[in-house]
Protein backbone atom coordinates (compact mmCIF):
# COMPACT_ATOMS: atom_id res chain seq x y z
CA UNK A 1 0.00 0.00 0.00
CA UNK A 2 2.72 2.41 1.03
CA UNK A 3 4.85 1.54 -1.94
CA UNK A 4 2.09 2.22 -4.47
CA UNK A 5 1.26 5.54 -2.79
CA UNK A 6 4.83 6.73 -3.13
CA UNK A 7 5.04 5.86 -6.83
CA UNK A 8 1.83 7.84 -7.50
CA UNK A 9 3.49 10.65 -5.62
CA UNK A 10 6.56 10.29 -7.77
CA UNK A 11 4.42 10.52 -10.90
CA UNK A 12 2.70 13.63 -9.54
CA UNK A 13 6.08 15.15 -8.77
CA UNK A 14 7.29 14.55 -12.33
CA UNK A 15 4.11 16.04 -13.79
CA UNK A 16 4.32 19.10 -11.54
CA UNK A 17 7.70 19.90 -13.12
CA UNK A 18 6.02 20.44 -16.50
CA UNK A 19 5.33 24.06 -17.39
CA UNK A 20 1.87 25.37 -16.55
CA UNK A 21 1.04 22.42 -14.25
CA UNK A 22 0.53 23.31 -10.62
CA UNK A 23 0.61 20.95 -7.66
CA UNK A 24 -3.15 20.40 -7.73
CA UNK A 25 -3.43 19.59 -11.44
CA UNK A 26 -0.39 17.32 -11.15
CA UNK A 27 -2.15 15.31 -8.44
CA UNK A 28 -5.34 15.17 -10.49
CA UNK A 29 -3.44 13.99 -13.58
CA UNK A 30 -1.53 11.38 -11.59
CA UNK A 31 -4.73 9.92 -10.19
CA UNK A 32 -6.31 10.04 -13.63
CA UNK A 33 -3.39 8.05 -15.04
CA UNK A 34 -3.71 5.63 -12.13
CA UNK A 35 -7.33 4.95 -13.13
CA UNK A 36 -6.49 4.28 -16.80
CA UNK A 37 -6.48 0.69 -18.05
CA UNK A 38 -3.05 -0.87 -18.40
CA UNK A 39 -3.32 -0.60 -22.22
CA UNK A 40 -4.21 3.07 -22.13
CA UNK A 41 -1.44 3.91 -19.68
CA UNK A 42 1.21 1.99 -21.65
CA UNK A 43 0.09 3.65 -24.83
CA UNK A 44 0.70 7.03 -23.21
CA UNK A 45 4.12 5.89 -22.00
CA UNK A 46 4.98 4.52 -25.44
CA UNK A 47 3.95 7.75 -27.16
CA UNK A 48 6.28 9.69 -24.89
CA UNK A 49 9.08 7.23 -25.62
CA UNK A 50 8.38 7.40 -29.35
CA UNK A 51 8.50 11.19 -29.37
CA UNK A 52 11.86 11.14 -27.63
CA UNK A 53 13.19 8.40 -29.91
CA UNK A 54 12.03 9.83 -33.21
CA UNK A 55 11.80 13.56 -32.82
CA UNK A 56 14.90 15.65 -32.53
CA UNK A 57 16.22 18.97 -33.69
CA UNK A 58 17.08 19.83 -37.26
CA UNK A 59 20.84 20.35 -37.38
CA UNK A 60 20.40 23.14 -39.92
CA UNK A 61 17.68 25.35 -38.46
CA UNK A 62 17.17 23.88 -34.96
CA UNK A 63 13.49 23.22 -35.71
CA UNK A 64 11.79 20.29 -33.97
CA UNK A 65 11.61 17.53 -36.56
CA UNK A 66 11.35 13.78 -37.18
CA UNK A 67 13.81 14.06 -40.04
CA UNK A 68 17.17 15.76 -40.22
CA UNK A 69 17.29 18.17 -42.03
CA UNK A 70 13.67 19.05 -41.38
CA UNK A 71 10.86 19.27 -43.94
CA UNK A 72 11.17 23.04 -44.25
CA UNK A 73 14.91 22.93 -44.87
CA UNK A 74 14.50 20.27 -47.58
CA UNK A 75 11.40 21.71 -49.28
CA UNK A 76 12.46 22.57 -52.87
CA UNK A 77 9.60 25.08 -53.25
CA UNK A 78 10.89 27.38 -50.52
CA UNK A 79 13.16 30.36 -51.11
CA UNK A 80 16.58 29.47 -49.74
CA UNK A 81 18.17 32.89 -49.48
CA UNK A 82 15.91 34.48 -46.89
CA UNK A 83 16.06 33.36 -43.27
CA UNK A 84 13.49 34.33 -40.70
CA UNK A 85 15.02 34.19 -37.20
CA UNK A 86 12.66 33.33 -34.35
CA UNK A 87 12.98 32.50 -30.66
CA UNK A 88 11.18 29.16 -30.51
CA UNK A 89 9.61 26.54 -32.78
CA UNK A 90 5.98 27.63 -32.12
CA UNK A 91 6.88 31.12 -33.43
CA UNK A 92 8.10 29.60 -36.70
CA UNK A 93 4.96 27.47 -36.87
CA UNK A 94 2.74 30.54 -36.40
CA UNK A 95 4.57 32.46 -39.13
CA UNK A 96 4.44 29.48 -41.46
CA UNK A 97 0.70 29.15 -40.87
CA UNK A 98 0.20 32.79 -41.85
CA UNK A 99 1.37 31.76 -45.36
CA UNK A 100 2.95 35.07 -46.29
CA UNK A 101 6.51 33.88 -45.80
CA UNK A 102 8.07 31.22 -47.97
CA UNK A 103 11.71 31.32 -46.95
CA UNK A 104 13.79 29.47 -44.39
CA UNK A 105 13.69 29.64 -40.60
CA UNK A 106 16.29 29.69 -37.90
CA UNK A 107 15.22 28.88 -34.37
CA UNK A 108 17.43 30.46 -31.71
CA UNK A 109 16.09 28.33 -28.90
CA UNK A 110 15.44 31.29 -26.62
CA UNK A 111 16.31 34.94 -26.18
CA UNK A 112 19.12 36.89 -24.61
CA UNK A 113 18.53 37.56 -20.92
CA UNK A 114 21.52 38.37 -18.71
CA UNK A 115 19.12 38.29 -15.73
CA UNK A 116 18.55 34.59 -16.37
CA UNK A 117 22.17 34.05 -17.31
CA UNK A 118 21.31 33.48 -20.98
CA UNK A 119 24.00 34.88 -23.26
CA UNK A 120 24.78 34.54 -27.00
CA UNK A 121 26.53 31.20 -26.43
CA UNK A 122 23.33 29.69 -25.08
CA UNK A 123 21.45 30.42 -28.32
CA UNK A 124 21.98 28.96 -31.79
CA UNK A 125 23.77 32.07 -33.01
CA UNK A 126 27.06 30.57 -34.20
CA UNK A 127 24.93 28.08 -36.18
CA UNK A 128 23.15 31.01 -37.83
CA UNK A 129 26.46 32.64 -38.70
CA UNK A 130 27.66 29.34 -40.18
CA UNK A 131 24.54 29.13 -42.36
CA UNK A 132 25.16 32.63 -43.64
CA UNK A 133 28.80 31.84 -44.25
CA UNK A 134 28.07 28.65 -46.19
CA UNK A 135 24.98 29.61 -48.11
CA UNK A 136 23.83 32.28 -50.50
CA UNK A 137 21.80 34.28 -47.99
CA UNK A 138 20.61 37.76 -48.99
CA UNK A 139 18.20 38.72 -46.23
CA UNK A 140 17.73 37.99 -42.55
CA UNK A 141 14.38 38.83 -40.98
CA UNK A 142 14.58 39.19 -37.22
CA UNK A 143 11.24 37.98 -35.86
CA UNK A 144 11.94 37.76 -32.16
CA UNK A 145 9.07 38.74 -29.85
CA UNK A 146 8.14 42.44 -29.53
CA UNK A 147 9.13 42.73 -25.86
CA UNK A 148 12.26 43.93 -24.06
CA UNK A 149 14.18 40.63 -24.35
CA UNK A 150 13.09 40.04 -27.95
CA UNK A 151 14.07 43.57 -28.99
CA UNK A 152 17.45 43.26 -27.27
CA UNK A 153 18.08 39.95 -29.04
CA UNK A 154 17.17 41.50 -32.40
CA UNK A 155 19.43 44.49 -31.76
CA UNK A 156 22.30 42.24 -30.77
CA UNK A 157 21.88 40.10 -33.90
CA UNK A 158 21.65 43.11 -36.19
CA UNK A 159 24.95 44.32 -34.77
CA UNK A 160 26.52 40.98 -35.72
CA UNK A 161 24.87 40.58 -39.11
CA UNK A 162 24.92 44.01 -40.68
CA UNK A 163 28.72 44.10 -41.10
CA UNK A 164 28.36 40.90 -43.17
CA UNK A 165 26.80 42.97 -45.93
CA UNK A 166 23.35 41.40 -46.09
CA UNK A 167 19.93 42.94 -45.70
CA UNK A 168 18.81 42.75 -42.07
CA UNK A 169 15.22 43.62 -41.27
CA UNK A 170 12.97 43.62 -38.23
CA UNK A 171 9.29 42.67 -38.32
CA UNK A 172 7.03 45.71 -38.12
CA UNK A 173 5.80 46.98 -34.79
CA UNK A 174 2.17 46.23 -35.67
CA UNK A 175 2.13 43.52 -33.03
CA UNK A 176 0.81 44.51 -29.64
CA UNK A 177 3.70 45.47 -27.36
CA UNK A 178 4.72 42.70 -25.03
CA UNK A 179 2.77 40.09 -26.99
CA UNK A 180 3.99 36.70 -28.15
CA UNK A 181 4.34 35.90 -31.85
CA UNK A 182 3.10 32.44 -31.08
CA UNK A 183 -0.34 33.73 -30.18
CA UNK A 184 -0.71 36.45 -32.82
CA UNK A 185 -3.32 35.84 -35.51
CA UNK A 186 -2.28 35.15 -39.10
CA UNK A 187 -3.42 38.50 -40.50
CA UNK A 188 -1.43 40.45 -37.88
CA UNK A 189 1.64 38.29 -38.48
CA UNK A 190 1.40 38.75 -42.26
CA UNK A 191 1.18 42.51 -41.84
CA UNK A 192 4.15 42.50 -39.45
CA UNK A 193 6.24 40.51 -41.95
CA UNK A 194 5.26 42.54 -44.98
CA UNK A 195 5.87 45.79 -43.14
CA UNK A 196 9.32 44.74 -41.93
CA UNK A 197 11.88 47.49 -41.84
CA UNK A 198 15.55 47.44 -42.53
CA UNK A 199 17.73 48.01 -39.49
Amino acid at each position, binding site marked *: MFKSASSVERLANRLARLPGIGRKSANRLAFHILKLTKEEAFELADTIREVKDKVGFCTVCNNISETDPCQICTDPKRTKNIICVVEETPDAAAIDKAESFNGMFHILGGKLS*PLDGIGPDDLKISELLARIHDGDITEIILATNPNV*EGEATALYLSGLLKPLGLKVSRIARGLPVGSDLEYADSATLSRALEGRQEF
Partner: protein
Amino acid sequence: MIINSLSLTNFRNFEKLQTEFSPTVNIFYGKNGSGKTNLLEAIFVLCLGRSHRAASETVLVQKETDFYRIEGNLSQDDVSIELAVAYQKHTRKKIMLDKVAIKTSELYDNFCAVAAGPEDSEILAGSPSSRRNFIDIYLSQYSKKYLRLLTDYHKVLQQKNAGLKNRVDISAYNELLVLNGSEIILLRKQFLDAIKTETKEYYKLISLGSYFDLLYKPSIKETENLESVELIQEKFREVLENYRMKESIMERSLVGPHLDDISFTINNLPARNYGSQGEIRTAALSLKLAVYKLIKEKRQITPLLLLDEIFAELDVGRAEGLINLFANFDQLFLTTAVEPPEFLKSQGRSFLIDDGKIIDKK
Protein backbone atom coordinates in the same frame (compact mmCIF):
# COMPACT_ATOMS: atom_id res chain seq x y z
CA MET B 1 -15.55 58.52 -11.13
CA ILE B 2 -16.97 57.95 -7.66
CA ILE B 3 -16.04 55.39 -5.02
CA ASN B 4 -19.31 54.18 -3.49
CA SER B 5 -17.92 51.73 -0.99
CA LEU B 6 -14.67 50.32 0.31
CA SER B 7 -13.71 47.21 2.17
CA LEU B 8 -10.31 46.41 3.62
CA THR B 9 -8.69 43.29 4.98
CA ASN B 10 -5.32 43.45 6.77
CA PHE B 11 -4.40 46.77 5.22
CA ARG B 12 -1.97 48.68 7.49
CA ASN B 13 -3.79 48.98 10.82
CA PHE B 14 -7.20 47.96 9.43
CA GLU B 15 -7.90 44.32 10.09
CA LYS B 16 -11.44 44.53 8.69
CA LEU B 17 -13.33 47.52 7.41
CA GLN B 18 -16.45 47.97 5.35
CA THR B 19 -17.97 51.36 4.64
CA GLU B 20 -20.00 53.43 2.19
CA PHE B 21 -18.90 56.88 1.04
CA SER B 22 -20.57 60.11 0.11
CA PRO B 23 -20.24 60.98 -3.60
CA THR B 24 -18.98 64.44 -2.60
CA VAL B 25 -16.99 65.13 0.57
CA ASN B 26 -15.70 62.47 2.97
CA ILE B 27 -13.89 63.54 6.10
CA PHE B 28 -11.81 61.11 8.16
CA TYR B 29 -11.00 62.60 11.52
CA GLY B 30 -9.33 61.23 14.60
CA LYS B 31 -6.11 61.19 16.59
CA ASN B 32 -2.70 60.82 15.01
CA GLY B 33 -1.99 57.14 14.41
CA SER B 34 -5.71 56.26 14.29
CA GLY B 35 -5.36 55.15 10.66
CA LYS B 36 -7.05 58.00 8.80
CA THR B 37 -4.09 58.50 6.48
CA ASN B 38 -4.02 54.74 5.82
CA LEU B 39 -7.59 55.01 4.54
CA LEU B 40 -6.54 57.62 1.99
CA GLU B 41 -3.67 55.38 1.01
CA ALA B 42 -6.00 52.39 0.54
CA ILE B 43 -8.17 54.45 -1.79
CA PHE B 44 -5.11 55.48 -3.79
CA VAL B 45 -3.91 51.88 -4.06
CA LEU B 46 -7.37 50.77 -5.18
CA CYS B 47 -7.39 53.33 -8.00
CA LEU B 48 -3.82 53.07 -9.25
CA GLY B 49 -2.44 49.79 -7.93
CA ARG B 50 0.36 51.38 -5.93
CA SER B 51 0.82 53.49 -2.84
CA HIS B 52 1.56 57.19 -3.20
CA ARG B 53 3.83 57.14 -0.15
CA ALA B 54 5.16 53.62 0.52
CA ALA B 55 8.03 52.23 -1.50
CA SER B 56 7.21 48.57 -0.90
CA GLU B 57 4.06 46.48 -0.80
CA THR B 58 5.15 44.61 2.31
CA VAL B 59 4.72 47.60 4.60
CA LEU B 60 1.05 47.84 3.54
CA VAL B 61 0.31 44.41 4.98
CA GLN B 62 -0.92 44.41 8.58
CA LYS B 63 1.64 43.14 11.06
CA GLU B 64 1.57 39.37 11.64
CA THR B 65 -0.51 38.70 8.53
CA ASP B 66 0.75 37.89 5.06
CA PHE B 67 -1.73 39.53 2.69
CA TYR B 68 -3.92 42.55 2.23
CA ARG B 69 -7.05 43.01 0.18
CA ILE B 70 -8.78 46.21 -0.89
CA GLU B 71 -12.17 46.06 -2.59
CA GLY B 72 -14.41 48.81 -3.80
CA ASN B 73 -17.52 49.54 -5.72
CA LEU B 74 -16.94 52.38 -8.16
CA SER B 75 -19.23 54.09 -10.60
CA GLN B 76 -18.84 56.35 -13.57
CA ASP B 77 -21.62 57.59 -15.83
CA ASP B 78 -24.14 55.14 -14.29
CA VAL B 79 -21.86 52.16 -14.89
CA SER B 80 -20.85 50.44 -11.70
CA ILE B 81 -17.82 48.17 -11.32
CA GLU B 82 -16.18 46.04 -8.66
CA LEU B 83 -12.48 46.65 -8.26
CA ALA B 84 -10.10 44.68 -6.05
CA VAL B 85 -6.37 44.92 -5.35
CA ALA B 86 -4.83 42.07 -3.39
CA TYR B 87 -1.28 41.35 -2.42
CA GLN B 88 0.15 38.25 -0.85
CA LYS B 89 3.69 38.43 0.50
CA HIS B 90 6.29 36.76 -1.75
CA THR B 91 3.91 36.62 -4.71
CA ARG B 92 2.60 39.09 -7.23
CA LYS B 93 -0.04 41.68 -6.66
CA LYS B 94 -3.40 40.91 -8.23
CA ILE B 95 -5.80 43.47 -9.62
CA MET B 96 -9.32 42.35 -10.50
CA LEU B 97 -11.95 44.34 -12.35
CA ASP B 98 -15.35 42.68 -12.08
CA LYS B 99 -13.52 39.51 -11.02
CA VAL B 100 -11.31 39.47 -14.13
CA ALA B 101 -7.55 39.96 -13.66
CA ILE B 102 -6.24 43.14 -15.28
CA LYS B 103 -2.85 44.82 -15.65
CA THR B 104 -1.87 47.89 -13.66
CA SER B 105 -1.81 49.90 -16.89
CA GLU B 106 -5.55 49.34 -17.30
CA LEU B 107 -6.11 51.11 -13.98
CA TYR B 108 -4.26 54.12 -15.36
CA ASP B 109 -6.45 54.02 -18.47
CA ASN B 110 -9.56 54.43 -16.34
CA PHE B 111 -8.77 56.15 -13.07
CA CYS B 112 -6.95 59.21 -11.81
CA ALA B 113 -6.15 60.26 -8.26
CA VAL B 114 -4.17 63.10 -6.76
CA ALA B 115 -2.98 62.90 -3.16
CA ALA B 116 -1.53 65.76 -1.11
CA GLY B 117 -0.17 65.57 2.40
CA PRO B 118 2.71 66.23 4.79
CA GLU B 119 4.98 63.69 3.03
CA ASP B 120 4.97 66.00 -0.03
CA SER B 121 7.69 68.09 1.59
CA GLU B 122 9.98 65.23 0.55
CA ILE B 123 9.43 66.19 -3.09
CA LEU B 124 11.20 69.49 -2.45
CA ALA B 125 13.48 68.69 0.46
CA GLY B 126 14.02 64.92 0.29
CA SER B 127 16.13 62.66 -1.88
CA PRO B 128 16.07 62.61 -5.71
CA SER B 129 14.12 59.35 -5.62
CA SER B 130 11.14 61.11 -4.01
CA ARG B 131 11.18 63.61 -6.88
CA ARG B 132 11.29 60.83 -9.48
CA ASN B 133 8.47 59.06 -7.65
CA PHE B 134 6.42 62.22 -7.83
CA ILE B 135 6.95 62.56 -11.60
CA ASP B 136 6.33 58.87 -12.23
CA ILE B 137 3.06 58.68 -10.29
CA TYR B 138 1.52 61.75 -11.89
CA LEU B 139 3.05 61.63 -15.36
CA SER B 140 1.74 58.07 -15.68
CA GLN B 141 -1.73 59.53 -15.22
CA TYR B 142 -1.07 62.51 -17.49
CA SER B 143 0.38 60.58 -20.44
CA LYS B 144 -0.87 57.13 -21.36
CA LYS B 145 2.40 56.29 -23.09
CA TYR B 146 4.58 57.06 -20.08
CA LEU B 147 3.85 54.05 -17.89
CA ARG B 148 4.64 51.59 -20.69
CA LEU B 149 7.89 53.39 -21.52
CA LEU B 150 8.89 53.45 -17.87
CA THR B 151 8.11 49.77 -17.33
CA ASP B 152 10.11 48.77 -20.40
CA TYR B 153 12.94 51.12 -19.45
CA HIS B 154 13.28 49.47 -16.05
CA LYS B 155 13.21 46.00 -17.56
CA VAL B 156 16.00 46.98 -19.96
CA LEU B 157 17.91 48.54 -17.07
CA GLN B 158 17.74 45.32 -15.03
CA GLN B 159 18.98 43.32 -18.02
CA LYS B 160 21.79 45.80 -18.61
CA ASN B 161 22.89 45.68 -14.97
CA ALA B 162 22.86 41.89 -15.07
CA GLY B 163 24.83 42.10 -18.33
CA LEU B 164 27.42 44.38 -16.75
CA LYS B 165 27.84 41.94 -13.86
CA ASN B 166 28.09 38.93 -16.21
CA ARG B 167 30.48 40.90 -18.46
CA VAL B 168 28.49 40.42 -21.66
CA ASP B 169 28.08 42.89 -24.52
CA ILE B 170 25.54 45.48 -23.37
CA SER B 171 25.30 47.52 -26.61
CA ALA B 172 21.78 46.26 -27.38
CA TYR B 173 20.58 47.32 -23.92
CA ASN B 174 22.15 50.74 -24.28
CA GLU B 175 20.31 51.25 -27.55
CA LEU B 176 17.01 50.15 -25.97
CA LEU B 177 17.65 52.50 -23.05
CA VAL B 178 18.15 55.31 -25.58
CA LEU B 179 14.93 54.45 -27.44
CA ASN B 180 12.73 54.22 -24.33
CA GLY B 181 14.66 56.70 -22.20
CA SER B 182 14.66 59.58 -24.70
CA GLU B 183 10.88 59.51 -24.91
CA ILE B 184 10.75 59.43 -21.12
CA ILE B 185 13.01 62.49 -20.94
CA LEU B 186 10.92 64.35 -23.51
CA LEU B 187 7.66 63.59 -21.69
CA ARG B 188 9.20 64.61 -18.35
CA LYS B 189 10.44 67.85 -19.86
CA GLN B 190 7.01 68.69 -21.28
CA PHE B 191 5.19 67.69 -18.09
CA LEU B 192 7.55 69.66 -15.84
CA ASP B 193 7.31 72.73 -18.08
CA ALA B 194 3.53 72.63 -17.72
CA ILE B 195 3.79 72.04 -13.95
CA LYS B 196 6.22 74.95 -13.61
CA THR B 197 3.84 77.43 -15.20
CA GLU B 198 0.87 76.35 -13.09
CA THR B 199 2.77 75.99 -9.83
CA LYS B 200 4.24 79.48 -10.12
CA GLU B 201 0.71 80.90 -10.25
CA TYR B 202 -0.63 78.85 -7.36
CA TYR B 203 2.40 79.54 -5.22
CA LYS B 204 2.20 83.28 -5.82
CA LEU B 205 -1.49 83.17 -4.87
CA ILE B 206 -1.15 81.12 -1.69
CA SER B 207 2.08 82.69 -0.44
CA LEU B 208 0.84 86.19 -1.29
CA GLY B 209 3.42 87.07 -3.91
CA SER B 210 6.44 84.82 -3.47
CA TYR B 211 8.29 83.37 -6.42
CA PHE B 212 8.59 79.67 -7.21
CA ASP B 213 10.62 78.02 -9.93
CA LEU B 214 11.80 74.58 -10.94
CA LEU B 215 14.42 73.15 -13.24
CA TYR B 216 14.39 69.66 -14.73
CA LYS B 217 17.84 68.11 -14.42
CA PRO B 218 18.13 65.01 -16.59
CA SER B 219 20.97 62.70 -15.64
CA ILE B 220 22.32 63.00 -19.20
CA LYS B 221 23.39 66.53 -18.18
CA GLU B 222 21.46 68.34 -20.86
CA THR B 223 19.00 71.06 -19.95
CA GLU B 224 18.87 73.00 -23.22
CA ASN B 225 18.22 70.77 -26.19
CA LEU B 226 15.30 68.76 -24.94
CA GLU B 227 12.76 69.81 -27.56
CA SER B 228 12.83 66.79 -29.83
CA VAL B 229 13.27 63.11 -29.23
CA GLU B 230 16.00 62.96 -31.92
CA LEU B 231 18.15 65.55 -30.13
CA ILE B 232 17.76 63.72 -26.84
CA GLN B 233 18.61 60.36 -28.42
CA GLU B 234 21.78 61.81 -29.89
CA LYS B 235 22.89 63.22 -26.54
CA PHE B 236 21.91 60.10 -24.58
CA ARG B 237 23.85 57.84 -26.99
CA GLU B 238 26.92 60.04 -26.66
CA VAL B 239 26.74 60.07 -22.85
CA LEU B 240 26.29 56.29 -22.66
CA GLU B 241 29.32 55.87 -24.89
CA ASN B 242 31.37 58.11 -22.56
CA TYR B 243 30.24 56.10 -19.54
CA ARG B 244 31.06 52.69 -21.05
CA MET B 245 34.34 52.13 -19.28
CA LYS B 246 33.13 53.47 -15.95
CA GLU B 247 29.95 51.38 -16.06
CA SER B 248 31.84 48.21 -16.84
CA ILE B 249 34.20 48.85 -13.91
CA MET B 250 31.36 49.71 -11.50
CA GLU B 251 29.22 46.89 -12.94
CA ARG B 252 26.10 49.00 -12.91
CA SER B 253 24.27 51.57 -14.95
CA LEU B 254 25.40 55.09 -14.08
CA VAL B 255 23.41 57.38 -16.34
CA GLY B 256 19.84 57.69 -17.59
CA PRO B 257 16.34 58.82 -16.59
CA HIS B 258 16.40 56.50 -13.55
CA LEU B 259 18.81 59.05 -12.06
CA ASP B 260 17.05 62.25 -13.14
CA ASP B 261 16.39 65.06 -10.67
CA ILE B 262 14.50 68.34 -10.35
CA SER B 263 15.70 71.42 -8.50
CA PHE B 264 13.20 73.76 -6.88
CA THR B 265 13.76 77.35 -5.90
CA ILE B 266 11.71 79.69 -3.72
CA ASN B 267 12.45 83.39 -4.16
CA ASN B 268 15.48 82.36 -6.23
CA LEU B 269 17.04 80.28 -3.44
CA PRO B 270 17.28 76.46 -3.50
CA ALA B 271 14.21 75.23 -1.60
CA ARG B 272 16.09 72.22 -0.25
CA ASN B 273 18.61 74.26 1.68
CA TYR B 274 16.90 77.57 2.28
CA GLY B 275 13.15 76.92 2.25
CA SER B 276 11.35 77.22 5.58
CA GLN B 277 8.99 74.42 6.56
CA GLY B 278 6.01 76.62 5.73
CA GLU B 279 7.41 77.63 2.33
CA ILE B 280 8.13 74.03 1.43
CA ARG B 281 4.66 72.87 2.45
CA THR B 282 3.03 75.63 0.45
CA ALA B 283 5.20 74.90 -2.59
CA ALA B 284 4.44 71.18 -2.35
CA LEU B 285 0.72 71.91 -2.17
CA SER B 286 1.02 74.24 -5.16
CA LEU B 287 2.69 71.40 -7.08
CA LYS B 288 -0.25 69.13 -6.31
CA LEU B 289 -2.76 71.80 -7.31
CA ALA B 290 -0.90 72.13 -10.61
CA VAL B 291 -0.82 68.38 -11.16
CA TYR B 292 -4.54 68.13 -10.38
CA LYS B 293 -5.39 70.86 -12.87
CA LEU B 294 -3.16 69.44 -15.62
CA ILE B 295 -4.40 65.86 -15.34
CA LYS B 296 -8.00 67.04 -15.25
CA GLU B 297 -7.55 69.12 -18.42
CA LYS B 298 -5.56 66.55 -20.34
CA ARG B 299 -7.54 63.43 -19.46
CA GLN B 300 -11.00 64.95 -19.21
CA ILE B 301 -11.42 62.92 -16.02
CA THR B 302 -11.75 64.65 -12.67
CA PRO B 303 -9.14 62.98 -10.46
CA LEU B 304 -10.17 61.71 -7.08
CA LEU B 305 -8.81 64.10 -4.52
CA LEU B 306 -7.09 62.82 -1.37
CA LEU B 307 -6.02 65.54 1.04
CA ASP B 308 -4.10 64.55 4.16
CA GLU B 309 -3.94 67.14 6.96
CA ILE B 310 -3.60 70.09 4.64
CA PHE B 311 -5.49 72.43 6.98
CA ALA B 312 -3.28 71.75 9.97
CA GLU B 313 -2.04 75.30 10.34
CA LEU B 314 -4.75 77.22 8.55
CA ASP B 315 -7.71 79.22 9.83
CA VAL B 316 -11.16 78.40 8.43
CA GLY B 317 -11.13 81.25 5.92
CA ARG B 318 -7.84 80.17 4.37
CA ALA B 319 -8.89 76.50 4.43
CA GLU B 320 -12.00 77.32 2.44
CA GLY B 321 -9.95 79.42 0.01
CA LEU B 322 -7.55 76.54 -0.46
CA ILE B 323 -10.25 73.93 -1.07
CA ASN B 324 -11.81 76.20 -3.67
CA LEU B 325 -8.54 76.23 -5.58
CA PHE B 326 -9.17 72.57 -6.41
CA ALA B 327 -11.90 73.77 -8.70
CA ASN B 328 -14.97 71.59 -9.31
CA PHE B 329 -13.73 68.43 -7.63
CA ASP B 330 -15.97 65.40 -7.93
CA GLN B 331 -15.21 63.34 -4.87
CA LEU B 332 -12.97 64.45 -2.07
CA PHE B 333 -11.46 62.46 0.79
CA LEU B 334 -9.67 64.37 3.49
CA THR B 335 -8.24 63.80 6.92
CA THR B 336 -7.96 66.11 9.86
CA ALA B 337 -6.86 65.68 13.45
CA VAL B 338 -8.97 68.61 14.55
CA GLU B 339 -12.70 69.14 14.23
CA PRO B 340 -13.40 69.44 10.46
CA PRO B 341 -14.51 72.89 9.24
CA GLU B 342 -18.29 73.35 9.09
CA PHE B 343 -18.38 74.34 5.40
CA LEU B 344 -17.01 70.89 4.51
CA LYS B 345 -18.94 68.87 7.10
CA SER B 346 -22.20 70.16 5.71
CA GLN B 347 -21.31 69.00 2.17
CA GLY B 348 -20.86 65.30 2.88
CA ARG B 349 -20.09 62.72 5.54
CA SER B 350 -17.66 62.55 8.43
CA PHE B 351 -16.08 59.39 9.80
CA LEU B 352 -14.49 59.27 13.22
CA ILE B 353 -11.52 56.89 13.12
CA ASP B 354 -9.87 55.27 16.10
CA ASP B 355 -7.32 52.47 16.22
CA GLY B 356 -8.09 51.02 12.78
CA LYS B 357 -11.86 51.25 13.11
CA ILE B 358 -14.60 53.64 12.10
CA ILE B 359 -16.31 54.34 15.41
CA ASP B 360 -18.80 56.96 14.29
CA LYS B 361 -20.34 58.10 10.99
CA LYS B 362 -22.35 61.21 10.36
